[in-house]
């Protein structure tokens, strides 16, 4: 019954891990999980914590659902998936509150919103329900990383241009301020996150012509 055993990092499995980071990025191509993503990108640190949390939740929920996939009745699968996701998110939330309290305060409701983040549900429905646990875990990590990458790129530019710092440390030299350089306060405000993502999509599609929409 069992088909031929593949090596753990065969070409197909590497592809699962890597395509979501590049061409099939969950944010810029699949349009999933934008909801809770952008509000946390004012600073690099919360964006990084958010990226790690989402990756953990996607990877583990993909793994769990994939292990259970043959026992879940199709009619109630959404409820089962939501329960698994919600339980994992509660774990992540309690963990953040215990170890990085400041960041968890900054993230406020957005940790809870990982539950309704369409990326998690989307990957469960599209991948974990039909694939083996190891592949699902890789797919989860890949999608989490692709999502986190966009978050970190946006946060990098917003923090650098908006507050002149990176990870809380000032990087723009004093001399620049004395010469008349001013931080662009616009980048701290929410609309710039949307425009930044728009520009990332623009650059990505200009590089890969086959992704252009008609």
């Amino acid at each position, binding site marked *: 019954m069992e088909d031929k055993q593949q090596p753990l990092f065969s070409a197909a499995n590497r592809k699962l891990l890597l395509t979501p980071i590049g061409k099939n990025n969950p944010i810029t191509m699949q*349009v999933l999980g934008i909801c809770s993503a952008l509000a946390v990108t004012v600073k690099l640190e919360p964006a990084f914590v958010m990226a790690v949390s989402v990756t953990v939740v996607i990877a583990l929920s993909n793994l769990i659902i994939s292990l259970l996939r043959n026992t879940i009745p199709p009619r109630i699968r959404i409820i089962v998936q939501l329960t698994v996701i*919600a339980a994992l998110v509660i774990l992540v939330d309690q963990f953040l509150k215990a170890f990085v309290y400041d960041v968890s305060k900054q993230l406020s409701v957005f940790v809870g919103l990982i539950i309704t983040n369409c990326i998690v549900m989307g990957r469960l429905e599209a991948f974990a329900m039909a694939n083996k646990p190891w592949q699902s875990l890789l797919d989860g990590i890949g999608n989490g990383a692709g999502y986190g990458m966009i978050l970190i790129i946006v946060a990098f530019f917003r923090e650098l241009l908006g507050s002149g710092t990176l990870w809380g440390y000032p990087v723009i030299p004093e001399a620049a301020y004395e010469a008349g350089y001013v931080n662009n306060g616009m980048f701290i405000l929410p*609309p710039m996150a949307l425009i930044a993502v728009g520009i990332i999509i623009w650059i990505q599609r200009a590089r890969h012509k086959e992704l252009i929409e008609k």
Partner: protein
Amino acid sequence: MENLLNIFVKSIFIDNMIFAYFLGMCSYLAVSKTVKTSVGLGFAVIFVLGITMPINYAIENFLLKKGALSWINPELAGIDLSFLSFIIFIAVIAAIVQLVEMIVEKISPTLYNALGIFLPLIAVNCAIMGGALFMQEREYASIAEASVFGLGSGIGWLIAVVGIAAIREKVRYSNIPAPLRGLGITFIITGLMGIAFMAFMGIKL
């Protein structure tokens, strides 16, 4: 009364779900291709937010909050169940959406046909869950305030989604750089709309 009106205006214009918090972006991008479908989903969101918000408020304040159980027995005052709030809120939302779908189907088939396909989508719309979590975080003083906040957020979402749908219908005839077509330009337009909405910032009644 003044306080309620203030929360209402604030939740529509200043703390707009889309422009200030990016909540419900997935369905926002998915249905905003035509005005007609966006109006349908917008009303469904108002509907569900308006119903789930008071229910979640009651659950939060009579079951989950620290000391909330003291109405059953003063000995229970020390129990804090707030870590359960995520799973309970999402369960309530999913259940209410299912219930609303069944009731609407029974009572008003016309409304069901209009909202039908959108209702199941709403259970995983971040705007609904986000509303519940904001309600929890901001600690509204009464159930009326929470309901008004729910309705206001829903209306704000409707305005945003109908606005972008109307713009997208026109943008189709414009000459946009090819890589920016579709998703890219929608993001940028949403950003520009958000800048426009920032003009409301600081309004207080």
